[in-house]
């Protein structure tokens, strides 16, 4: 794997935006079928340029214009914002109060740093394959609730390029949600509450809401492997103190007496479960599982309609990794370390180019430019991720067509 040097970005980004970025499906995604007037044109994009120069309120007449601008500016990072009442690029020409954010995808940001109190393998911006399980669990829990509870159809889950994941919920109705609706949704999806001052961050009371029991049954299969073996949360005196602090007082004393006699985390967890079984209606066992594994959402990112979020397929400027869509069918196999960096993609492109040249040049030169670009990312390890993205965009096209068909059928009745 080619190592990534942040200093090489100015050399690599032009190539990336010219030959690798999936402009086609990207433009189709944000145009949403062109159903709503000037929807793409009223969308805010922001570019982070070299030396942290941050340019907000950019908007474009067409996906082609956006593509040209990307290729001209070669942004280090691209953020996507809201669809406004007016074109953001003209925000200075309209009355201040009239310029308002109207729609945006409902987005979620799950960041590994928010789990620092429950993971022992890494801290802050670091991640490893052990703690990545937390992201897998988060996606499973949130995605199930979005689909089954909220009736949502079109979700795009994306690796942020560094230490977390983003979710873009793109259903027509959801993009219109008010900020109150968005925060209500995040609150519904939140079980872990309180900062470093709070020891017990999950408190369950009867009756247990179906959202919680459904989530628990998604957490349980991961708990032993991830928490007991991987993080070894009952492995030592020091680590189990954090766990037993969450059980009722009398059980706590009992456990502290018994734990040293047990061999490992697995045995100690068995003991804890047995003791808890005898002290209904305590939910300590579930509360521990949830406190250590349940997704932690950043409400501020989701709440604001105008909040910006890093765009899919933007390159993370620190790691060089591309922010790629995650295939939920193969969620457990997703490996953040296998996600290609921009330097790797560029070198893959070079290799492919050399091979082609050996194969024969004539054919290649006769081809029109756009087609060549399509084939370009297909020659690299970005290809499978673009396919996931294309599938997502196609699904949306399909349900939009279904919707149109349904509407015209209805009209046909008259």
């Amino acid at each position, binding site marked *: 794997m080619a190592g990534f040097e942040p200093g090489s970005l100015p050399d690599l980004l032009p190539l990336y935006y010219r030959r690798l970025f999936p402009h086609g499906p990207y433009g189709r995604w944000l145009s949403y079928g062109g159903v709503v007037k000037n929807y793409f044109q009223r969308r805010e994009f922001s570019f982070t340029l070299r030396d942290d120069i941050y340019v907000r309120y950019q908007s474009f007449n067409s996906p082609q214009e956006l593509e040209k601008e990307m290729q001209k500016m070669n942004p280090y990072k691209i953020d996507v914002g809201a669809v406004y009442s007016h074109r953001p690029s003209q925000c200075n020409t309209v009355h201040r*109060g*009239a310029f308002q954010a109207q729609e945006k995808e409902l987005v979620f940001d799950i960041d590994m740093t928010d789990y620092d109190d429950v993971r022992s393998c890494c801290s802050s911006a670091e991640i490893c394959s052990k703690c990545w399980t937390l992201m897998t669990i988060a996606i499973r829990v949130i995605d199930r609730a979005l689909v*089954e*509870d*909220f*009736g*949502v159809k079109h979700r795009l889950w994306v690796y942020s390029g560094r230490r977390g994941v983003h979710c873009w919920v793109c259903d027509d109705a959801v993009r219109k*949600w*008010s900020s*109150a*609706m968005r*925060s*209500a949704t995040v*609150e*519904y999806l939140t079980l872990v509450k309180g900062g470093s001052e709070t020891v017990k961050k999950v408190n369950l009371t009867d*009756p*247990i*809401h*179906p*959202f*919680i*029991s459904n989530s628990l049954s998604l957490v349980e299969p991961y708990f032993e492997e991830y928490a007991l073996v991987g993080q070894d949360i009952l492995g030592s005196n020091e680590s189990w103190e954090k766990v037993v602090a969450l059980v009722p007082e009398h059980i706590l004393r009992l456990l502290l007496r018994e734990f040293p006699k047990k061999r490992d985390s697995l045995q100690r967890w068995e003991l804890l479960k047995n003791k808890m079984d005898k002290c209904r209606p305590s939910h300590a066992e579930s509360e521990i599982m949830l406190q250590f594994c349940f997704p932690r959402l950043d409400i501020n990112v989701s709440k604001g309609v105008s909040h910006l979020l890093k765009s899919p397929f933007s390159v993370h400027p620190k790691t060089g990794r591309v922010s790629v869509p995650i295939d939920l069918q193969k969620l457990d196999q997703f490996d953040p370390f296998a996600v290609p960096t921009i330097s790797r993609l560029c070198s893959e492109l070079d290799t492919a180019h050399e091979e082609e040249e050996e194969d024969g040049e004539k054919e290649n030169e006769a081809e029109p430019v756009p087609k060549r670009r399509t084939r370009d990312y297909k020659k690299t390890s970005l290809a499978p991720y673009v396919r996931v993205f294309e599938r997502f965009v196609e699904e949306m096209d399909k349900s939009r067509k279904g919707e149109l068909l349904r509407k015209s059928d209805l009209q046909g009745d008259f």
Partner: protein
Amino acid sequence: MEFSREKRLKGRLAGDRRGDLYPHSLQFYLQPPTENISLAEFENFAIDRLKLLKVVENLGVSYVKGSDEYKSRLEREIRKLKFPYKALVEDDYDARRKDHISHFILRLAYCQSEDLRRWFIQQEMDLFRYRFNALTGDLVEKFLKYVNLSYGAISKEVKEKFAVQLRNSTPGLGGAKVEELEFYKVPLQDAMDLFRVRRVYLLNGFAYVPHTDIVAIVLNNYRTKLSKALALTARSLPAVQSDERLQPLLNHLSHSYVGPDYSIQKNVGKISLEHIDALSVKSFPLCMRQLNKALRDNHHLRHGGRMQYGLFLKGIGLTLEQALQFWKSEFIKGKVDADKFDKGYAYSIRHNYGKEGKRTDYTPFSCMKIILSNPPSQGDYHGCPFRHSDPELLKQKLQSYKIPPTGITQVLELVKGMHYQLACQKYFQLTHDVDDIGFSLNHPNQYFAESQKLLSGGREVKKEPSEPESSQQKLSSQKRTNSCSIPTSSNTEADTELEGLDAYFTED
């Protein structure tokens, strides 16, 4: 008298339309009022609703919302202020109309900032909750239909299929109750406050809400509509602000704080009548000083002045007997003889003290009331001099009171910015020679009490006004006589009809 008869007649004529306008005692205030209303009514409605919302706020702090004590106290206030208080009362058109119009007036005043909006929505929500909960079963259904919030109940089969989920999603239900309870299938947006705290079952984009929680849905819906409406009103505010009749009013409403009402007198009987003139110079706010002087000069005050000044005097501690003596001794110096006074005026003084008529113990007027309601007309001396005097005359008056020119300039600046109470506060500072008065002024009796506190605290008053007073008095009363012949702007305003109020509530 004339007026009320006319009004009743008009009411009867409009009888048929009235029912259509307000079919329920409760409403979502979706349509702005379209009728023209007088500026005086506009002001009174606004003040009464603000009072009501203040009561709602205070009760919410002092009592558990929804407790019997809370409910009975709130009902008492609603009745007193003549808003619709019982859903069953059919013929309360006037109350419903007042409810409707006053709500929209306060929207104008309270849409201006995030803080104001939040306060307004909070109080309106509490008020609405109380009134909705007072509806009886049948009226609930009717109201829900009226506001398009009737949802389909789920079938028995669906209920059986999801019995466990429904039970676990609905705290406070006994196990068996799910079967007996009606559940409604409600779109997510309408059930926001319920699903936010996981009090309902969510399935595939719908919330399954038990009948008992429908109130939350209604409130949620009302809140959404109200906050949207306020945002829209805020956008049309520039138009309102350019309306010079409304702007000062609305500005004042939104800055108003209804403080203590000074109905409880600590000093009853401690004021002697001989001291009133001296006190009026030292410790009365300008409005009362002006009324006292007018009374002394003319040996008469018209009704508005008698109310404002009489209640103020009551507030500073005059007993009923003192009040009768005070007014009588002055009035009989003029065209009124003792007999006429006893027959014509004594009644209204006893009335003020709650000894006649409805036996309401009237409270002294606050600055807000004085500034906003019943503006003075020809021959009147009541009102707020900072609000109701021509700035030029106000300047002359302040000069005659020996206020330094820089001080006068500052006062006039505040008047120009329509900060009448701040202007009065400045006047207090200038006449008491303090830099910071350390309180915010909202009541003439507060002015008096603070002044007395300051003066009795041993602080030296720089300008002892007793000596040059007599000459000053003449001078200023002469000036004031002049002022009476000049119609002030407020006089012309008083009777104007406010047209097209609805134009300020744009729909989007």
